[in-house]
């Protein structure tokens, strides 16, 4: 059946458009909710990150994150060390976001079951139910959560679930200049994420942040310097946004 046959007139095309849109969206929603169908995860290749913060900005724009709050940020460090008797200084960048853990410490502490892990692995907050008690903020081992000053409720990266449900990539992945962020389905053996993870795993190159926490994160890193795997030992940030907008 050709497009000409299907849409014999502009009127027919316009009438059919909502059905087509719904038809595209519904199977995606159903698929993402089906148990075991998808297991969304992210691989960050630190070697490719240039610290441009495009991900940071796109996340803010996509998710209307309030001023001076961040769902993701590229932590940037100056590392000075002696190599072969010479003092060498360099920059190390580390994209951070919610790790959408398989054993998320933020979920069991929530007194009202507002934060939960979807069947597709994405950890989200039900904004209608959240009471803003910030218990999850305390429990997160990655400092990935915060209280949104516009809503007074818990906020965090959702892997852009609204985009993923519509078949799109998270905003940070879409805008990553160096292609450092790879998003995909752990259950898809042919997907880029799975292939890249398997390839890197053979070289024992895959790391996660704070593996000792037992949270079993789903954000994986290639090129993660062990000195940055846990709490960083060094001098505190020269610039930190802390004052929230009025």
């Amino acid at each position, binding site marked *: 059946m050709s497009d000409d046959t299907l849409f014999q007139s502009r009127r027919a095309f316009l009438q059919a458009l909502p059905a087509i849109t719904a038809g595209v969206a519904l199977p995606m929603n159903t698929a993402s909710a089906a148990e075991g169908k998808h297991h969304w995860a992210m691989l960050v290749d630190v070697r490719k990150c240039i610290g441009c913060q495009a991900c940071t900005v796109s996340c803010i724009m996509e998710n209307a994150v309030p001023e001076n709050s961040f769902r993701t940020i590229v932590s940037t460090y100056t590392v000075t060390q002696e190599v072969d008797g010479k003092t060498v200084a360099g920059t190390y960048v580390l994209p951070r976001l919610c790790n959408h853990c398989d054993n998320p410490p933020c979920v069991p*502490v929530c007194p009202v079951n507002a934060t939960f892990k979807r069947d597709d692995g994405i950890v989200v907050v039900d904004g209608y139910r959240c009471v803003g008690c910030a218990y999850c903020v305390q429990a997160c081992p990655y400092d990935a959560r915060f209280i949104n000053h516009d809503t007074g409720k818990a906020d965090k990266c959702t892997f852009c679930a609204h985009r993923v449900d519509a078949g799109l990539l998270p905003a940070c992945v879409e805008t990553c200049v160096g292609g450092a962020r790879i998003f995909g389905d752990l259950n898809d053996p042919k997907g880029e994420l799975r292939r890249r993870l398997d390839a890197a795993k053979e070289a024992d190159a895959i790391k996660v942040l704070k593996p000792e926490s037992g949270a079993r994160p789903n954000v994986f890193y290639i090129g993660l310097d062990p000195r940055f795997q846990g709490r960083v030992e060094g001098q505190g940030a*020269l610039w930190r946004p802390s004052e929230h907008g009025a």
Partner: protein
Amino acid sequence: MNTSIVEVVNVAREVSWLPWAVQYFFLIGLSVGCFLLTLPWFVLRRPAWERASRLALLGALACGLTAPVALLADLHQPARFLNFYLHPNLGSWMAWGAFFIPLYLGGLALYAWLVLRPDLKRLADIGGRGAGIYRAFAYGGHDSLGATRIAAVLALAGAALVALYTGMEVMVVSARPLWDTPFLPVQFFITAVAGAIGLVLVLDRAIGDGRAAEGTHLLRLLAATQVLVLAVGAAWLLLGVTGLSPRHAEALAQVAPSAAWRITAVWAAGSALATLWLAVRHPEWRLAAGLIALHSAWMMRWTIFIGGQQIPKTSAGFYDYHLPLGQDGLLGIVGTAGLWIAVLILLISVLPWAGQRRAQA
């Protein structure tokens, strides 16, 4: 290889358990501690304890009625508390708190009513404006020790559960090594009892006849709490310094490099020692001992909550915290204190808290 790392760009997570939380934990702790101090007279009928127990009852009620207000304020929108009952997650200690607080406060209110019934009747018998109301509330004015004991058990169960949940709620946060220690609930409880004794001593000077400590071993009890505070602190430090517990060592390593934390530790230990010395050697300075004990109970909670949240989980260094002047900071602290004073004045004005002495006045 010497390495130096300087963080150039990162996010600073703000303190999300605000000074409201400090006020809540302080006040509910004092209330529980004060309630325990009411038992020797109202339940065990030890005459020497009458003054102290009656002041403690005032303290338990004033603190107990004020504390939940601070807790609600920390939710940013107080009506959200309804979700605690509509969608409880019984795997969360905080969710249980929503049931334990009413249990304790309900038990406390019932207990207070039962123990004050005879005094309400005496007040009604004197006559005057309000005699009818007092007579109605006295409901016969019977002094029923059996009923009092049942209410005391109910309130005691509530108090124990409140003490348990407030400690466990913080202790289970394994993301913060400083909080993740079984010593924390113990320290919360001991400092709460010490603060409650301090409050009784302060109230004794302010509205009592200054004799609440006579024959009650109140000061000896205060001294004992300080010995326990120091012992628990020393045990925590020992586990951290020796590395016997990696978790405690991690917590110590996080705070030890900070001069502010070292000063705080010395201040806390010094305060405990000063309270101990005053309680043992200078009973005539019991007001000072009480004030220091109260300050220690508050400072311990401030340090744990506000100081603990200044320790980043992934970033380098410490997050800065400057006390805001508005409702999320100073205004919240002053407002809670003001509410506490208002509730106390109201209770003193309407309740025959001092028993026969008040009724005859």
